[in-house]
């Protein structure tokens, strides 16, 4: 297999007085969608935040296209083509829908994602483009958050709990849009509570338990029981 696009190598990280991750390692290959699963507090969000540079770590712990980028400032990592759709969406409340999208793309890379293709993907956003972003429904806000990340034309996009707090019908709509994102060659890491949905979408998975990798591989290679044990722990 070719060299990985992104290598996470013995990554340890956390907050000032609390370590959340202990020696996590895995690879993400070009064009691949990877599901990151685990119980609440397993360290999934911490891992995504560390990858994009919102939390510090040692340089060699995150390697992108052969460069050690761990601990670089977030703005530099984003410029390299790694984008995060944050948990809770966190749209800029004093910006309109369109401004949220524009600011996502302004300092990003060139590529096929711009306002037009996005409005084609999520037509409702065109209709609401001048509305304050936080006036939208939860599902629509999630579309803006995804769009905002796509506007930077990332080669790796990290999704943090994109279905959290949304109605099942909306979740279905959003997941229906994901293949048109990954089909453009974008690699993805998906953090998701709904393990079945995540494993159905991804080609590989990593399961975290209390800050350590408890199981990793391809969804088809592991039994449901095995994954459940890795998810909840054996105690």
């Amino acid at each position: 297999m070719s060299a990985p696009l992104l290598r996470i190598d013995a990554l340890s990280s956390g907050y000032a007085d609390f370590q959340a991750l202990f020696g996590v390692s895995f690879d993400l290959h070009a064009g691949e969608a990877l599901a990151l699963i685990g119980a609440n507090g397993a360290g999934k969000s911490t891992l995504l935040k560390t990858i994009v540079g919102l939390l510090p770590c040692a340089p060699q712990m995150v390697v992108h296209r052969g460069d050690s980028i761990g601990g670089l400032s977030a703005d530099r990592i984003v410029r390299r083509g790694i984008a995060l759709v944050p948990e809770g969406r966190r749209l800029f409340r004093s910006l309109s829908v369109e401004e949220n999208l524009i600011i996502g793309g302004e300092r990003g890379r060139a590529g096929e994602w711009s306002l037009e293709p996005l409005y084609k993907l999520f037509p409702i956003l065109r209709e609401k483009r001048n509305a304050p972003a936080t006036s939208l429904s939860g599902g629509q806000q999630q579309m803006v958050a995804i769009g905002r990340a796509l506007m930077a034309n990332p080669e790796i996009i990290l999704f943090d709990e994109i279905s959290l707090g949304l109605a099942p019908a909306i979740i279905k709509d959003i997941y229906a849009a994901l293949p048109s994102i990954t089909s453009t060659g974008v690699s993805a890491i998906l953090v998701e509570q709904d393990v079945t949905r995540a494993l159905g979408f991804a080609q590989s998975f990593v399961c975290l338990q209390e800050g350590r990798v408890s199981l990793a591989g391809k969804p088809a290679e592991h039994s449901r029981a095995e994954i459940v044990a890795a998810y909840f722990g054996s105690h």
Partner: protein
Amino acid sequence: MDWLNAIVQGILLGGLYALFAAGLSLIFGVMRLVNIAHGDFIVLGSYLALVVVQTLGLNPFVAALIVVPVMALFGYVLQRVLLNPTLGKDLLAPLLVTFGLSIIIQNGLLTFFTADSRRVMAGGIETASVSVGPLNLGVLPLAMFATAIAVILGLEFIFTRTSLGRAFRATSDDAEIAKLMALDNRHIYAMAMALSAGIVALAGIFLAVRTNFDPSTGPMRLIFGFEAVIIGGLGSLWGTLAGGVVLGVAQTLGALIDPGYQVLAGHLVFFLILILRPRGLFPRMDG
């Protein structure tokens, strides 16, 4: 007649106070920083204008072409070197660092320029006036008011129409997520401070032409600007102009009763607003 005249003069004076306040309001809006040295920055701008006018023999308003960029650069560097490291911790660090800056600037100016009062001459504009009906309006106060409106329009344009303005708003909303838009917060904050210092330079030039100034006059300018911000309502640029006008009118009316009441009347109106409408006259809708 005296009353009408005092009110009109007060409204025009409000333009100067809005200039004092706009920079204060801007940096608070973007990074929640209150610059205790803001008034001393204004006086620093006045002295800079004095030096440029005296050494190059320029009209003070032409000197703005030098003073404004120099002050903006000063603001940018100051933010990156001294103020960015204080942000995000607690309230104390930025407050005390800018307080220390205030003392340094005041005493620095004392060292170089002594405590003597100075004034910058602008070739007659400071005494020129136009008659509007029964009123005699000074050209300088009119220019101050027009500048305040232009500055607010300019800030509004920057905030709503430009990439920098979007970055200001985004960083103010959520500094962490703004980084994910490839924004470098340190640079954005420094740009906000540069803009604030540029406006401060304009205010300093007007101050220098309008009245005598000395190194100790900064804190009072900070207080006037602060009062305009609070009276107008935090985070509202036009509110800041309204706050400046209310303060200016209160002062000129106070002075009409007794010259000793001028500044006091402004303070009392400020406290009155604080008691009656603690969020100011024009509070931000989303705030």
